[in-house]
């Protein structure tokens, strides 16, 4: 089942990557990148559960903390730039 | 005495930190830098005496013996480079302080300068290839900052070229480190020396060339040097002086160190080195002749002079490497001096373009002397140190029966003379042809010395140093020979590092 979760997450990642590369607006790319990050967080959690090793959980915590920061910055940026 | 070894690295860093904290007081910053760099010079003197007497000293950072930790290794080569470099850094600092210029007043200047010092010193002392990368980065990052501190248009353009090329070189360095670790499982240099010998011959030779290219960018070898003449001349003179004197030499140092330490005779790229040396000399000096600006001419001659050092290495004989080491010592001092003189010229004439200044013989005879002596030395005119260096190379070349490269070297020295004479004639004899650039700074009042006392005196001191190198050429060359013997037989180095 874990393997299936990985595959599903990989597919989701591919979808987000599609949005990231196609855009068309900067906001769309931000959405894609954001989704990409979420898939990463999910994969980290699944990985930890799968191996039983918690070494990567600090990275998960850090991602939860800093991921929104780039979002916020870019949002401020879009606000100035438009689209 | 092993406690002395890390001092030239750590002390400037403590100084840099203090300097950042002392940002509100320029005086305090200057005192910090002067005290720190003077101490480092003293430490370097002590080191070179001890190393020459007792042999290589190893200090393991953190107390972790190689290959676990980072070994700092002071052998003759490192010690002599350290001494010359730290002396230059101190003298140029005095010059920079003596120049009443706005850029050097930036709150960050002193601290970044100390970082540069630490990086240069660490590059010489480290016995670990990855730490060498870090040392390079310290030195380079500081140099990026110093180069662009003024933020002028030319500086920004030059800074782009310089930073981008340096970054490429750094990326290649990391890549090489990755590949080396992949192949050997270590980054300790003494350890690498042992393990590289076990690699297949093709891989070994390839790594030799790869390292040559990586450091060749920093050292400004053909065809990797183009960035240098575009970037160095835009910095303020004391900065260019340090760059010219030290940074390329750190690259050459790394080339000599790695080629002699890592690679057994059969995988050293001797012929390639000689070809590169010839091309570097020729293209460098042709570039110098084609230029019209004091700093640009001097920058191109850096390149051609680097060719001489590579040529010495390319012989892979004691005589050749000794000549290369002697050349490095000579060139660091003389090139620094020339750029300092060039700075004085620019200050007194209001420009460094040959067409905009002229007939300065009358108003600034002191500068004429301060320029002419190192210029003649650079061109290898006896009895100056440049002649000893040139003769040592020629001698080594004939002993190795490499007549072609020697001939190139001799012709290039004549062309070097021509380029120096073009500066001399353009600045001190010819009348100025173009009117002063109205935007550029007007010629500064120079006084009897041709410049502020604290700029002229350090320059004069370096001129005296370069003459002293010629007078004391006997012992210095003997030292270079001992250094070369050490380098070509690295067993002592490896043993010293691995002695737990």
């Amino acid at each position, binding site marked *: *089942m*874990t393997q*299936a*979760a990985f595959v*599903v*997450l990989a*597919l*989701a*990642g*591919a*979808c*987000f990557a*599609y*949005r990231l590369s196609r855009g068309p*607006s900067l*906001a*769309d790319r*931000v*959405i*894609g990148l*954001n*989704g990409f990050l*979420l*898939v990463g*967080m*999910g994969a980290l*959690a*699944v990985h*930890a*559960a*799968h191996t*039983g090793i*918690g070494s990567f*959980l*600090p990275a*998960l*915590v850090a*991602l*939860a*903390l800093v*991921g*929104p*920061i780039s*979002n*916020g910055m*870019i*949002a*401020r940026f*879009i*606000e*100035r*730039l*438009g*689209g | 005495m092993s406690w002395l070894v890390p001092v030239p690295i750590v002390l400037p860093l403590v100084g840099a930190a203090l300097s950042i904290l002392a940002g509100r007081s320029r005086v305090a910053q200057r005192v910090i830098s002067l005290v720190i760099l003077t101490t480092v010079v003293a430490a370097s003197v002590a080191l070179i005496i001890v190393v020459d007497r007792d042999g290589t000293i190893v200090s393991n950072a953190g107390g972790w013996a190689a290959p676990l930790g980072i070994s700092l290794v002071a052998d003759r080569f490192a010690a002599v480079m350290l001494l010359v470099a730290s002396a230059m850094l101190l003298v140029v600092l005095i010059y920079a302080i003596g120049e009443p210029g706005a850029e050097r007043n930036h709150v960050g200047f002193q601290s970044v300068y100390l970082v540069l010092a630490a990086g240069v010193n660490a590059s010489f002392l480290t016995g670990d290839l990855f730490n060498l990368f870090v040392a390079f980065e310290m030195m380079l990052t500081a140099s990026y900052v110093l180069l662009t501190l003024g933020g002028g248009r030319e500086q920004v353009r030059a800074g782009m070229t310089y930073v981008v090329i340096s970054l490429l070189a750094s990326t290649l360095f990391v890549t090489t480190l990755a590949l080396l670790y992949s192949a050997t499982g270590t980054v300790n240099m003494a350890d690498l020396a042992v393990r590289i010998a076990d690699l297949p011959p093709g891989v070994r030779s390839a790594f030799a060339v790869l390292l040559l290219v990586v450091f060749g960018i920093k050292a400004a070898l053909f065809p990797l040097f183009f960035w240098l003449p575009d970037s160095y001349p835009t910095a303020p003179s004391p900065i260019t002086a340090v760059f010219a004197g030290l940074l390329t030499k750190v690259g050459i140092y790394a080339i000599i160190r790695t080629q002699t330490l890592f690679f057994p005779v059969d995988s050293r790229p001797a012929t390639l080195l000689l070809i590169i040396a010839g091309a570097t000399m020729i293209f460098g000096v042709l570039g110098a002749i084609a230029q019209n600006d004091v700093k640009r001419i001097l920058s191109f001659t850096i390149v051609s002079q680097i060719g001489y050092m590579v040529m010495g290495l390319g012989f892979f004989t004691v005589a050749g490497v000794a000549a290369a080491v002697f050349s490095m010592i000579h060139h660091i001092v003389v090139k620094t001096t020339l750029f300092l003189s060039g700075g004085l010229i620019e200050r007194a004439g209001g420009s460094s373009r040959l067409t905009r200044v002229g007939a300065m013989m009358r108003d600034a005879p002191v500068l004429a002397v301060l320029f002419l002596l190192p210029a003649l030395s650079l061109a290898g005119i006896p009895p100056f140190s440049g002649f000893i260096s040139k003769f040592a190379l020629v001698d080594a070349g004939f002993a190795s029966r490499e007549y072609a490269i020697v001939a190139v070297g001799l012709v290039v020295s004549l062309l070097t003379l021509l380029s120096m004479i073009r500066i001399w004639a353009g600045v001190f004899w010819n009348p100025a042809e173009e009117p002063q650039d109205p935007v550029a700074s007007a010629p500064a009042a120079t006084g009897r010395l041709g410049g502020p006392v604290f700029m002229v005196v350090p320059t004069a001191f370096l001129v005296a140093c370069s003459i002293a190198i010629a007078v004391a050429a006997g012992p210095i060359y003997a030292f270079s020979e001992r250094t070369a013997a050490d380098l070509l037989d690295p067993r002592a180095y490896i043993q010293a590092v691995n002695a737990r």
Partner: protein
Amino acid sequence: MIGELLTLIGSILVLISALGVVRFADPLARMHALAKASTLGLLLILVGAAINLSDMNDITSVALAGILHILTSPPASNMVSRAIYLERDATHTNDVIDEGAVTLARYRAGGSGSSA
């Protein structure tokens, strides 16, 4: 087992939202779709992982990540939505109603003090 199942369900939710991000036509709609992945999907995965993990420290770490995520991700997605909304071309939206049009107009006119 239950942990793995939750993980899988969460992953599928993430995938569905990813499909939405691909399918939806305008950025705000895509933003809505993303919110799905970022909330329930990820939380289910985290819960599933927490169930599967044995070390207490690891479980608390996962919990922490979840709490922090709930705490930090809404304001960020609000900001992105806000940016999209404020910068989009008001005349070309599919919205049936836009009570914020006035605000929008004022913002565009620089009444908010923005220097954009």
